[in-house]
């Protein structure tokens, strides 16, 4: 008896040796830093001035009293909201298009993934160069097609710049979302549509009553993933405009960077990071909740 239970324990221990290493790495590099940020945000650490004082919630009060913060926050809200909406619409359209049968379908399917594979720095640079107001190819092409009468300063127009950057962020994500939708569409059994065809449903009715309910899960997961990715996007805006002109294209992640490395206020940047983290955590928990259907199969 004794021997049996002790080998059982050794076996369990050795089984934990397989699964624990990633958990430890994640705790050290992802979870501990979050607690460290909480601690840091209660002080007034400055990268240049050496004196450190405990200021409790003062960093948060200062952030919330700041008008620029709210402008940037509003930018972030638009960034996530419009971004997720547009990504889903494009993803849905493209996914349904790729579900049609045509000859070069598989070629299109692999090529549209290139934006997702290209490093974000490269994609942001490519678009910045194409959108250049004088030497950029976009103004030139649109001009030749008579769609614009004079060159547009895409990255300098206050009302436009955020959406121009957002387009680049969307451009990198929609291939993924459309392939996710395509995978779900492939999973819908054909009998479903045959029944619909017999009942004489038209395209729109078929979409609303047959396709869409099947896609709801994929769309929800897609929306949450998109919001989470957009919340984490720093490089696109940073390379394209650095948040400018003024703060017109600045979103929270860029503000975090500037607060720490251009204003040197490390603690206030940590407080901003936690605000960013809070939003991220909310959407991640929502994702987990939607994902719960899969846990039971785990």
């Amino acid at each position, binding site marked *: 008896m004794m021997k049996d239970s002790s080998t059982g324990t050794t076996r369990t221990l050795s*089984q934990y040796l*397989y*699964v624990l*290493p*990633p958990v430890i*790495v*994640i705790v050290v*590099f*992802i*979870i501990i*830093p*979050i607690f460290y940020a909480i601690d*840091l945000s209660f002080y007034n*650490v400055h990268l240049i001035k050496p004196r450190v004082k405990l200021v409790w919630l003062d960093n948060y009060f200062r952030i919330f009293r700041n008008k620029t913060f709210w402008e940037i926050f509003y930018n972030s809200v638009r960034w996530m909201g419009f971004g997720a909406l547009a990504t889903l619409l494009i993803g849905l359209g493209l996914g349904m298009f790729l579900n049609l049968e*045509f000859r070069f379908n598989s070629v*299109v399917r*692999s*090529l*549209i*993934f*290139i934006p997702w*594979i*290209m*490093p*974000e*720095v*490269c*994609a942001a*640079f*490519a678009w910045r*160069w*194409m959108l250049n107001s004088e*030497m*950029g*190819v976009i103004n*030139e092409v649109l001009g030749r097609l008579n769609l614009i009468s004079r060159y547009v300063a895409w990255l300098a127009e206050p009302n436009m710049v955020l959406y121009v950057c957002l387009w680049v962020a969307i*451009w990198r994500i929609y291939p*993924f979302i459309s*392939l*996710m939708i395509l*995978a779900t569409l492939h999973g819908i059994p054909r009998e479903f549509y045959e029944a619909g065809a017999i009942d004489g449903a038209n395209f729109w009715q078929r979409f609303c009553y047959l396709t869409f309910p099947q896609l709801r899960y994929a769309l929800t997961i897609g929306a949450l993933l998109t919001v989470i990715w957009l919340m*984490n996007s*720093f490089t696109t805006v940073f390379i394209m405009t*650095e948040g400018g002109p003024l703060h017109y294209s600045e979103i929270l992640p860029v503000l*975090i*960077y500037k607060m*720490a490395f251009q204003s040197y206020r*490390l603690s206030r940047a*940590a407080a901003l*990071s936690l605000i*960013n*983290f809070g939003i*991220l955590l909310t*959407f*991640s928990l929502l994702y*987990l909740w939607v*994902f719960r259907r*899969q846990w039971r*199969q*785990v």
Partner: protein
Amino acid sequence: MSFSTVHSRQTAIKITIKVAIAVVAIFVLTITLLPYLWLVITSFKNYGEVFDVPPTLIPKAPTLDVYKGVFTGEQLGRHDPWPLFFANSLAVAGGAALLCTLIASFAGYGFARFTNLKGGTFLLILILVSQMFPGPSLLIPIYAMLRRLTLDNSRLGLLLLYTAFVLPFTTWMSVGTFRNIPRDLEDAARIDGCSRLQAFLRIVLPISKLGMATTALFAFLLSWSEYPFGLVLLKTQSKHTVAVGLGAFLREFDVFWNEMAAATVMMSLPLIIIFLFVQKFFVRGLTEGALSG
């Protein structure tokens, strides 16, 4: 209406649909690929032509000089250590990919096989949710922590960091891989006297080579492309990865567009080639991971 007109109308509809599909496909591909195409075109222009207003759509005198400059690092009397940046990226991303695959393969196997392990599901969910956080929220605390440990401005520090960031996703990918591998073979091996570890290393791992290779490539791709943490941590130019070097170049000089284009093409090309080779497994792994774990 005679038979032939019905027939010709049907052909007409068929042709219209075909043309419509072709138009949409070309439109989608143009929007998707134009940026990369334009980078390639720009990278073949010489230093005069790149400033032409309006821009020329096809290089008048295509040249490889710019690529040569990026390869050697000597360009118009400046010295930009591009070869060093590429070597740094290769070391950091390659190291992270190897380390990550090593850890993820054991963990993936463990989670797939030891289903009655206490807390296993909780750990898997913890891993799943932690893949959402590497990003700007962690930038400041990680910078501050590594600075205290004087591990900032270190390529090894960056390698470990990338390993940690990519691990959640790759662990899930590898759980999926091992779940699809039947138990029978290793059960047979264990009856023949193999230990669990031997069965895993000698029987299971060789069968799942392809899955593990995909995992490694994915880890490599993400680490190779990472920018914000490299930007914050690597202060010395000689330690820069390509992403950081390119970013610095972009922010410093707003003029040498052809050089930046050439460097950008060189940075993305390996990833695109890798991807086109493995895309079938890759896309399946990715969409399955996101949709159903």
